[in-house]
């Protein structure tokens, strides 16, 4: 028995509609069907991750070399396999220290890449971007717009400093035992809060917009399903 493609698409669409309605039913509160959908999604993603890890990592990088050329394959995978095997000792609380070597290797490499990338890719370019508006000779902005660029540069610099001042937690102790930041840092941090609030407002607005797009897309799926049903029957 075979099903035609339109029926399969309709069945898939019906399943999608059903799951969508179940998710929408969360408006009435948490219940079994909603949890069933959530847990099903989490389980599906976990199973999919295992399959992806095997297909994308284990098989091509570990098994395939051994199958193709065992001698050369062993030479290739010996060190990664040893380090991976040491990680298995992390399961045991008594022998977990053996796996620290592999874990240290992973953390060290990851941190090195992260810090190096952050310094070269974010910190230094952003510092340069903040300073560059004040370099009038090397500025790419036209001469007519240099004044506005200079003002923009001041604004960016002030916003950056004010935002960083908000995260300055150094304070001097007082006779009363309390600690309070310096007055000018306190005032600067108050201005920094405004910049942070604007940035977080933008992020929240973007989150809402993304959510609205998802809602609109689900509504379109429901409408298409209804239209398909109307057209089909």
């Amino acid at each position, binding site marked *: 028995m075979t099903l035609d493609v339109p029926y399969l698409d309709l069945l898939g669409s019906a399943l999608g509609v059903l799951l969508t309605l179940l998710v929408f039913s969360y408006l009435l509160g948490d219940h079994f069907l909603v949890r069933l959908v959530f847990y099903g999604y989490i389980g599906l993603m976990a199973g999919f991750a295992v399959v992806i*890890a095997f297909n994308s990592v284990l098989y091509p990088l570990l098994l395939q070399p051994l199958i193709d050329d065992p001698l050369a394959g062993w030479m290739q995978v010996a060190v990664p396999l040893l380090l991976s095997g040491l990680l298995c000792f992390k399961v045991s609380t008594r022998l977990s220290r053996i796996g620290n070597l592999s874990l240290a290797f992973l953390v060290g490499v990851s941190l090195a890449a992260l810090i190096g*990338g952050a310094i070269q890719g974010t910190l230094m370019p*952003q510092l340069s971007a903040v300073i560059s508006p004040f370099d009038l000779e090397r500025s790419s902005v036209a001469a007519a717009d240099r004044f506005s660029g200079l003002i923009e540069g001041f604004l960016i610099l002030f916003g950056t400093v004010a935002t960083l001042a908000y995260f300055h937690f150094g304070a001097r102790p007082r006779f009363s035992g309390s600690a309070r930041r310096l007055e000018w840092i306190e005032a600067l941090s108050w201005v920094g809060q405004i910049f942070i609030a604007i940035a977080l407002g933008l992020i929240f607005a*973007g989150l809402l917009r993304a959510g609205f797009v*998802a809602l609109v897309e689900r509504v379109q799926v429901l409408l298409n399903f209804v239209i398909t049903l109307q057209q089909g029957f």
Partner: protein
Amino acid sequence: MEAQRCPMCGRVNPPGLEVCQYCQARLKPLWVEPPQDSSPSIEVGSTRARTPSASNEPLLPDWLLESRLDLGGESSPRMSEQDDSEQPLSEEASADEERFGGLFSDELGETEEDVPEWLRSLRDESESDQGVTATAAIEEGSEPIPFWLDFEEGKAEESPSEAPPSEKVLPFHEMPFEGLDLEDESLLSEITAEAKPISAEEPQTVPPFETLEPFLLEEQPSFPPQEQGVPPQPSASTLQERASLSPEAAEDWMSEIPSWLDALPGQDWEEGETAAPETPPEFLEGIVPPFVETEEELSDIEFPAWLGQIESTLEPQLESLMDTLTPAETETLLQEESLGEISQEQPAQSLAQEEIPVEVVGPLHGLRGILPAEPLVAEQKKPSKALSELLVTDKQRAQAELFLKLIEEEGKPKPMPSPKRARPHILWRMLIFFALFAGAILGFVQPQFATPPQELSVGVFDAMQAVNQLPAQASVLLVVDIEGQDFAEMQATTAAMLDQMMIKGAFFVLVSANQSGALQADRLLREVSRLSGHQYQPSSGWVNLGYLPGGVAGMQAFSQSLTEVLPFTIDGEVAWQNDRLRNIRTLSDFDLVVVITEDSTRARQWVEQLKGHVLESRLLFAVSAQVEPLIRSYYEANPRQIQSVLAGIRDGAIYETQTARPGWAMKLWGAYTLVVLTAIALILVGSVFYAVLALLNRPQAQGEGKER
């Protein structure tokens, strides 16, 4: 030898020590009874006094040693006489023992330790008293007795039980019963119950002089005032000796002052000299009458006039009353008067004397009041049973009951107050949902309500320029790091750009740094190809390299040598042997690199790791609207780190509008616009509503704050 316990502090000392190593109290008495004298039980009428020898009491004065030696020589006839007097009593006692089963017998095996302390002191005192009275009884027929002693004897014979020993002797001293409530009736009844057998037994054997104190049997010597503080109490033997002496000899004995007493200070007064009578100070003369001792002195006193008037009125009445009495009644009244005077003096005097203990051992044997604390402290060996019982007052009992009640209440489980959970505002949820849902439906049904975006943003312009500059059959690397829930937005954002690339015949290489990204990338290209009418298929239109493991490290490794990190496609085929990819060895070989993500962290990591490996002019970012504020700083920096940024459905709709190819973004744009407007309206209405509500509740809140 056994360890010995200190009678003072109660601590155990090693054997052989004579002094306690903790409190320096003497552990062994100075004089120990001979073994043959300790065995006999206490007999009624006999004394436990021992006659010390001169060898073991070298400190005794000569006159005391002589008197005791003399008494020792007369002890045997005294004891024989005493035995004769006790013979009929022993028969009666044996009959009583048979009747009471030997309950009150001393031969029940009652040891010295079983006897309570107060009973032992009672027996000691009664023994000493009986010894004194026995010596007085011996001399009863031979010596003349003073008139007051005669009266006392007759009184004792007439009513021997008027002053029983149990009433005279107070068994409660200070130290053994310290802390006891002597007013407790139960305790007193218990003590009197223990004392009853003695009081019931002793009246049969009390001699006529038992109730008399030793000091009554001696004449008061005229000691100087400074010696009266420590009066030497004569022992029984001394009293016996004095009683046997004639009045002249007694005077000689009294006038004979021992040598040790002669050496005391203040002895230089003349013999026969008496102490001067006490005279009031000069300032009290005329205010306080002098002490009157004789009737002659009384007649010299001048009484006030009002007292004389009373006397003058009472005397005739008394004389008339005396005339009416008969001689017999007058004699009776005189006797009663004399008896009343003696009985009034006796209790206080006897009580004061009975409270003073008599020494029974050592050089001070027979003396009273020399070491008053010794029998109370040194002889305490066995605490009374009453001491082990907890004495609780009513107040303490009430407090203890209250404390126990509090403990019980604390131990009872108390129901936990159910936390107040915020009720889900289902009504508000449903209202907001249906408003947004209605806006979306209306947007789909009536798309003309939303006008398409016309203005061209800088980011879209740069993106269009970069796509337009792509050569034909260009190779494009698509980094797709999106999750399923954001697929619609990312599709709307990138659909127009991908459509333009497909028009140019670009070949796509797909890679993803998250596990579901590979499938989402494949789905994205399929959907764009389907909606835009292209015939793009895998391997001919794109190669999916799949999942890039390792996070940041994987990105860095991929940026440095992509062919070694990801040699195979997601289908297991060799990726870099495709004809379209033969010239690709590094990232810089791609004509364009597009990063599509909805994660700000992942976007920043890709920017950081791709820097230096991809030209900025060939790097595009298509991100979600929520990532735009963070990624835009890389785009608007000077110099730029990325060529362009497409953010959200708006930039996608602009791209489609500019290219005049409405696609996925424009399909959703109408509904999206109405939903956003509805959301803005709801936010405004909700803000105004809660602001008004807060203003209305402000006076009430201020009132509650003032009350607090």
